[in-house]
């Protein structure tokens, strides 16, 4: 799913003298701001905002997100309750703010775990090749053909519903995409001459993998991970919409929509605002992902043609 922005303007940029001593990414990052990578800039600003909201949720919440007061139920959006209140008289805004913690932490956990597992598995498989690789590829095929929802439901029956089990369920499937990327890269690298050279000077397999493969794979994995967060947020939301996520009264966005569905016509704000919250955070991380991809995709950086 690599997008490859090729633009004529870029193709006419002449290579500049190489900066030395600055890490590659910082250098490219600086360049991206010069080139007005507005997606990335906006993505970073919004993501910082959302993460700050999640961190400082207890301070920002105007009311206790789980405190029920039936006398205050179904108050439409107003000055006191900007997003209104729900069927139990809880403040929707406070619940959305509190919910950002659940949604973001779930999404980040999924991405981090599956990226780690996937990268390692793919690297090993690509590096060793042969039978290991064949078995690995079949496992990936099987998992891809296996509806995630079954895993999620099965795991929820084994371990019970809850945010952590949701993470486990999604990770079970998600790691495959990282594994495929890192496997592909590993296979390319395996045949590179400098890896041969590294072997020749007596590096063992483990050293080669961590000293030579990993740094090369990391940028691809970073791109994939940043593109992934947005869709993971959506994925978690749909599973908790089906009742597999965090348990009430924890304010999970997907579950809030599921609850609000019943009151859609009477108190539409109960479902609309959590939906917008999901969309806003998914959009933010999608923009961030897009930006990071534009920034790090080596095909873009290297395709600076001179004539």
């Amino acid at each position, binding site marked *: 799913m690599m997008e490859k922005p090729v633009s004529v303007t870029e193709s006419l940029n*002449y290579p500049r003298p190489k900066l030395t001593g600055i890490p590659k990414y910082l250098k490219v990052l600086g360049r991206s701001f010069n080139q007005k990578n507005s997606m990335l800039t906006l993505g970073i600003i919004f993501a910082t905002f959302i993460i700050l909201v999640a961190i400082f949720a207890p301070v920002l919440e105007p009311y206790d997100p789980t405190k029920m007061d039936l006398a205050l139920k179904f108050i439409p959006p107003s000055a006191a309750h900007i997003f209104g209140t729900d069927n139990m008289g809880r403040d929707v805004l406070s619940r959305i703010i509190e919910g950002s913690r659940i949604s973001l932490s779930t999404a980040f956990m999924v991405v981090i775990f599956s990226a780690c597992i996937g990268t390692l598995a793919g690297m090993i498989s690509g590096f060793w090749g042969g039978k290991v690789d064949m078995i690995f590829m079949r496992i990936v095929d099987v998992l891809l053909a296996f509806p995630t929802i079954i895993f999620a439901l099965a795991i929820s029956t084994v371990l019970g519903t809850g945010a952590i089990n949701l993470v486990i369920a999604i990770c079970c499937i998600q790691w495959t995409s990282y594994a495929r990327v890192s496997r592909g890269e590993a296979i390319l690298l395996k045949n590179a001459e400098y890896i041969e050279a590294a072997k020749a000077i007596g590096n063992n397999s483990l050293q080669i993998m961590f000293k030579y493969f990993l740094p090369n794979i990391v940028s691809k994995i970073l791109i994939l991970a940043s593109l992934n967060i947005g869709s993971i947020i959506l994925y978690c939301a749909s599973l908790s919409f089906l009742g597999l996520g965090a348990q009430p009264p924890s304010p999970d966005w997907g579950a809030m929509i599921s609850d609000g569905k019943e009151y859609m016509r009477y108190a539409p704000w109960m479902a609309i605002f959590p939906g917008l919250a999901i969309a806003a955070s998914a959009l933010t991380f999608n923009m961030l992902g897009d930006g990071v991809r534009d920034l790090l995709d080596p095909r873009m950086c290297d395709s600076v043609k001179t*004539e």
Partner: protein
Amino acid sequence: MSVLLEIKDLNVSFTVDDKQVHILNNVSLEINKNEVLAVIGETGCGKSVTGSAILHLLPDNAIVTGDILFKGKDITKMNEQEFRQLRGQAIASVPQSPSTSLNPLMHVGNQVAECVLENNSSEDDKKKTVAKVHEIFASLGLPRGEDFYQNYPCELSGGMCQRVLIAMGVITHPELLIVDEPTKAVDWALRKDVVDVFCELKNEMKCAMLFITHDIAAAKYVADRIAVMYCGEVVEIGPTDSVINQPLHPYTKGLIASMPSKGFKVMNGFMPSFQDLPKGCRFSDRCECTSDICINNEPEIVEIAEGHFAKCSIYKNLNVSELFKHAATS
């Protein structure tokens, strides 16, 4: 000899990040009928941009000023539709890098035939064209027959692809053929073959060529006249013999000295970036005989021998005999 193509004060700049980057600076060239003009220079000096400007193939962010007269008509003022009548017909081109210039998902034969066929061509025309393609393939030393016609580019070698590209250029019998770096992507051993093909073309088809190359040896072999470009400017232009044997501009001298047969002496430094050009002569910071005048003033182009021009301040105040002395000593 009548002039086929005349380029007068061609300036091309690109808008990059809201800034104008000036690539071609007052380029003026002439190509006569049946004449081969080679344009030589380093990678990135604007040779190909010149070719693209003639073909109207510059990207959208290019700003072109100046005149390009083709048989007396200014083609820079033509709109796309008018120009399309000329492009591919009277003015054709042979692109560089054969490996990427062919559509990988199309039979090579069709790619050649496409140059001739219109959307509404009849079946009869199609058959004729196919026959013609076979013929041209044969004349270029490619295998004749349906098998070759239906090959995909990935099934051919680099040299074969190059010939297919040439076939695309010549099938319409153009009056002007713009050949862009024909030897760039070809094996050293095949280079001679390719150059020979162009020599034959020149002799048989009688079409004029703009032969863009950085390969001086090839240029010497094919061209009637040579133009040397540096940093978007024509710094020297003249008959092939004269330019090769008595180069006037310090840059040309450097280029020729760097040829393997002439000693393989590499010039100092690199071509400056277009965004950061020296104020005076663009070659001043690499030139061995730089003086204050070079750094501060842009030189003018002067005719030094008959038909042999150079753009260098050294020649500003010298007379012709001194000039040749100067040329001989260096």
